[in-house]
């Protein structure tokens, strides 16, 4: 299973050794390009009586608005850009793993879904961390970290600081490990019996793609909600 590695490009930028996973970058831009082209086509001719494509997009927006409305009490629709783009990007990126992109041969590695790279998921988790910290400090000021100056307040602040590490770590590893384990599972099934066994596993992976995108979005909303909501 040596093909599980990445197509790494090493270079030196400003005196630092950098390595880029070129296959991840390519598939990531592919997924983003699909979403961008879809969005441009869908929003080109907006009419009051929606066409089929516009109705589909309105339903997608209704899904995000409904989820945000149920989980964040007030001023919730300002979070739609982050939440919606995270969900759509992760969904398309996960589903890309089931496309037959592997027929394009690389020197090392293979073109699979970009979320099987820990660097990408960690970057998204750090974006979520920065966003919810920013929203927390914006709505509550310094009280977000230390809401009362007492023994329990300080302990709670320390727990909060610990959560700043564990939350992005678990977000990143959850998404990465699900997709990575799926690919290993497909390759193990392929080793047992070709064509017959991998097909149901790949169908299951499509389900996993939807579930993991939803889980990432739900956890993002929950973290934003706990950062901006009332203290109890």
């Amino acid at each position: 299973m040596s093909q599980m590695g990445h197509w790494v490009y090493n270079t030196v930028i400003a005196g630092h050794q950098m390595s880029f996973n070129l296959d991840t970058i390519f598939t990531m831009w592919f997924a983003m390009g699909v979403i961008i082209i879809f969005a441009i086509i869908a929003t080109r001719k907006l009419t009051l009586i929606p066409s089929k494509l516009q109705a589909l997009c309105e339903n997608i927006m209704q899904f995000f608005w409904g989820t945000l409305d149920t989980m964040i009490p007030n001023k919730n629709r300002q979070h739609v850009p982050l939440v919606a783009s995270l969900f759509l990007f992760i969904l398309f990126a996960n589903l890309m793993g089931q496309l037959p992109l592997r027929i394009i041969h690389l020197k090392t590695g293979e073109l699979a879904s970009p979320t099987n790279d820990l660097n990408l998921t960690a970057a998204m988790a750090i974006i979520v961390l920065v966003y919810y910290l920013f929203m927390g400090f914006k709505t509550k000021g310094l009280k977000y970290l230390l809401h009362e100056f007492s023994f329990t307040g300080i302990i709670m602040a320390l727990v909060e600081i610990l959560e700043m590490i564990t939350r992005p770590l678990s977000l990143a590893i959850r998404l990465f490990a699900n997709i990575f384990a799926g690919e290993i599972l497909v390759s193990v099934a392929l080793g047992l019996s070709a064509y017959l066994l991998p097909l149901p596993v790949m169908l299951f992976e499509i389900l996993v793609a939807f579930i993991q995108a939803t889980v990432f979005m739900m956890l993002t909303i929950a973290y934003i909600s706990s950062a901006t909501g009332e203290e109890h």
Partner: protein
Amino acid sequence: MIDTNTTMELAKLGGGIAIGFGAIGAGLGIGFATKGLMDAISRQPEIAGKAFGFFLLGAALSEACALYAFVVAAKLIGLM
């Protein structure tokens, strides 16, 4: 002193043990989640669709615990 070859073999053994113990927790978690789903549906059958969505979310969250163990195992075996 154990030589390098034996260490590699022992690391593979460790990977197997890691994924095994991780799977215990995730299996228990999904089992409890299914029990909760069945209880909810038998009490209130009309809530089945909504409860199943939450069940999938909870099952995915507890399954992630096994996948943390899987990452450790993959690291030990040398898959990544």
